């Protein structure tokens, strides 16, 4: 039987991949690794076996700061009543085109 207690659960890293040049990076998953270099190599092997990306970011999971689901209401509340931030709020007289094409 294996004594797994001897093993170390290496730090957790979150992996972000840029699918194509110019595109935003996207979270694709996570992995355990001893350090940044190790994490980057594993991320390449695990998350880009089929040319899924042209660049990879890895971030120690503990350094990610996230909003909490409990506060979702009040946290995003300031945007709720500001419909005037959307272009559809405005009435434009007929016969003119103000949209940039």
């Amino acid at each position: 039987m294996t004594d797994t207690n001897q093993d170390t659960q290496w730090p957790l890293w979150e992996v972000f991949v840029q699918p194509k040049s110019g595109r935003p990076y996207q979270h694709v998953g996570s992995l355990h690794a001893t350090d940044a270099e190790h994490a980057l190599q594993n991320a390449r092997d695990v998350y880009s076996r089929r040319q899924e990306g042209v660049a990879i970011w890895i971030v120690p999971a503990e350094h990610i700061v996230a909003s909490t689901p409990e506060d979702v209401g009040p946290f995003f509340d300031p945007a709720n009543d500001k419909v005037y931030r959307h272009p559809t709020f405005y009435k434009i007289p007929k016969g003119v085109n103000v949209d940039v094409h």
Partner: protein
Amino acid sequence: MEDIKRLEEFQAKIDAGEKIEPKDWMPDAYRKNLVRMMSQHAHSEIVGMLPEGNWIQRAPSLRRKLIATAKVQDEAGHGLYLYSAAETLGTPREQLLADLHSGKAKYSSIFNYPTLTWADMGAIGWLVDGAAMVNQVSLIGTSYGPYSRAMVRICREEAFHNRQGYEIIAELCAGTEEQKEMAQDALNRWWWPAIMMFGPSDKDSTHSDQSLKWKIKAEGNDSLRQKFITMTVPQAHARGLTIPDEDLKYNEETKQWEFGEVDWDEFFNVIKGNGIMNKKRLADRNAAHDNGKWVRDAADAYNKKKKSKVA
């Protein structure tokens, strides 16, 4: 009182088709059920490497060796996606692996059957991965976000597994009499175990009701099994192969292939650990883990050395 309100909100969210994320409130039973299911799924990917790894060196051409290697690599990757997804619910991967290695955790019963001939590599890709795909495509609809996202990746990658398997079978069926017999023999041995992969009938499944209500599973075992059978029977017939089921018949009205009685005693017997390969699979998995220890130790030592240089 608070919990009842939360439970109602939780159910409403699921009914509205929203996904549950790691930090969201969830009932303990939802968390437990998901960890069990995702870890079983992960273990199946990892143990699933063994029957095929067995054939990498004996594959009949360089092309087939490359394919088999790539497929086994994918399965290691799929295991990792699933362990990562399971970890988001607070159970460390070490714990999950310890449960696999001690025999406490289950994996798909299909991997407790032996891979006797090259045709079995075809049957595994065609039938076992085919059945897994039907299940996994459905699981994209699971209510748990990280599980669903892992399924999207896995399904995208796994399509080739299924196709390469059918290609092997097709090649054998176009070959000599002996090769055709080999293909038929593999189908005879893998058909019923593949059908059993979907688990017991919903009416006998201990987890089905709650799992469906919470959309842990998006579809019941019976409907997925039927989908697989109706999809696969014509693929067999197209190659001149016979499905080993005397009761198999096409229902013109429902457009489904109806099938005979599944031997669930065999299924439960294999799950209990009495399949042909249970002991060997578990021993091989433990050996692989133990023999890989030096790699983990080396990575640790290298990391420590690098850190001491910086300091």
